[in-house]
């Protein structure tokens, strides 16, 4: 899990940047704006989450997390990737709670927006996979909206099989590549 999160540090940094840019819309319970430098955004993939809290302030009373609440490793919203079965777009039971947590967060923070990326493994044809990736992104969107998130908060985009996480051609890589990503 840890490893998986570290991979998304650049994404999270982008999210932190976004928060930093919209300070006027911050609500009372949200942390003060962060100030990441642009070169940090393109930093090494393997620098750890802990490295970021120096640049942030505000803390979650329960978990002691001082970064952006979406990034709190103790919370389900820190998981930004869920996976799917081949040629399927149903949210699997083990990922339901994660999507629900994101939906609840969005419902509570109406100015927060998110892009849901849909991705596929390399099997099957490319344009069909674009359609399948969109179906996955839409399945996530529907569940987010069922928690009270609004359609205006959610953008979807499908990359089909065009942006694999793993370039290998085996079951492990395919399982990783069949995914939806929460990009805040």
């Amino acid at each position, binding site marked *: 899990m840890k490893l998986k999160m570290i991979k998304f540090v650049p994404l999270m940094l982008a999210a932190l940047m976004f928060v930093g840019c919209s300070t006027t819309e911050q609500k009372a319970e949200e942390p003060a704006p962060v100030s990441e430098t642009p070169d940090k955004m393109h930093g090494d993939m393997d620098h750890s989450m802990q490295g970021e809290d120096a640049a942030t302030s505000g803390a979650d009373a329960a978990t002691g997390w001082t970064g952006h609440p979406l990034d709190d490793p103790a919370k389900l919203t820190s998981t930004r990737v869920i996976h799917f079965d081949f040629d399927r777009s149903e949210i699997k039971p083990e990922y339901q709670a994660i999507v629900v947590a994101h939906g609840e967060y969005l419902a509570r923070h109406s100015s927060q927006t998110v892009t849901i990326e849909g991705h596929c493994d390399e099997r099957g*044809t*490319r344009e069909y996979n*674009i359609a399948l990736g*969109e179906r996955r992104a839409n399945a996530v969107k529907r569940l987010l909206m069922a928690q009270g998130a609004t359609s205006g908060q959610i953008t979807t985009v499908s990359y089909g099989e065009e942006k694999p996480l793993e370039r290998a*051609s085996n079951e492990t890589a395919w399982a990783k590549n069949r995914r939806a990503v929460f990009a805040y």
Partner: protein
Amino acid sequence: MKKLLIFIVLLFCQMAHSAPLTIEITESEMGALPIAVVPFGWQGPGQAPSEDIAAIIDADLKRSGRFKTMPSKDMIASPHTGTNVDFRDWRVLGMESLVVGQVKPNGVGGYIVRFQLFDVFKGEQLTGYSIPTTARDLRATAHHISDLIYEKLTGQRGAFATRVAYITSIAHAEGQRKMALQVADADGYHPQTIVTSTEPLMSPAWSPDGLKLAYVSFEKGRPSIFVQEVYTGKRQRVASFKGINGAPAWSPDGRKLALTLSKDGNPDIFILDLAKRTLLPLSRHYAIDTEPAWSPDGKYIIWTSDRGGRPQIYRIPSGGGKAERITFEGKYNARASYSPDGKLITMVTQIGREFRISVLDLASSQLQVLSDGSLDESPSFAPNGSMVIYATKIKGQGELAAVSVDGRVKQRLALQVGDVREPAWAPYSQ
């Protein structure tokens, strides 16, 4: 002869020689016509050109699967003109056809390539031309000679002097990939870059006149469809709706694009009139509808739909009407396109766990699997219908391959760097 000159003018804007693609025939031919292409002679002062015309013709003919060519080391004579041919030499070697020729300077910096094709048994010339050309068009001239030989001996128009578009993906700085849409000669030479991006490029489709390419670009982070002139580079964004803008396919008259849009909630097929900018919805279904292709007469659209639960091919009149399913064998059939005569469709078919290229005879419903990879996709017919080019994976790397439409001869077109995918065989130049 006038046709030849037009052809040469059309190919005048070729790039400098380079050969990133290498061709390897992976299955030998059976029942192919034995032919000897004798190395061409050089007549005249100065340096002979570096292009080996006979070798290019030899490779073309071999690649088609219709010919068995003779290695030049096995030849016992090397005539350059008909008058020097002793047909007994070639009968002894079992040759049915013989090509001889020579290259000479034309006095103004170019060349004249002369060739003759003979029937070895009858000892008769079947065809022969003198073709004026330039140093940079020597390869094109050789392909054109291959076309003339092919047509004379098989009765079918050759497709050697044609081009192929494809997408490359090359590892770039910081884990990024650099994508490019390229166009090369059908044998992989003369690659030209049409567009590059660090975001995905997809689904290149030739206009029927071979002058434009439609493609999908994610350059703004989301997909748009562009139409670009191949020679001028001028381009236009023709579809950038909310959601999917994908799978462009030109109508045979070049006036319309069939495409996939999900602007209304889920992917459906639409027909875009390029001049009027009108959009006609064709498929309306909550399932996935994508990958449209036109019949050569423009009357039908076939496409991939999973309305029956799994992806299968459906057909509908291009002006709208009732959709009918046309594939029933196999649980996954997708990305179909018609042969130039409209009698066959080629598509991706799942066989067990493998994705392979197949051909379906529409009259007999006979399905033939042509490829033997596990991740084969993007089949595209040659403009004469003789071969299908497709994308395959060899050791995790995307490569192009071609197979004769009877499945007898397969060949790899291996790029030296990066992934190659989504080949689209260009129509004949008009």
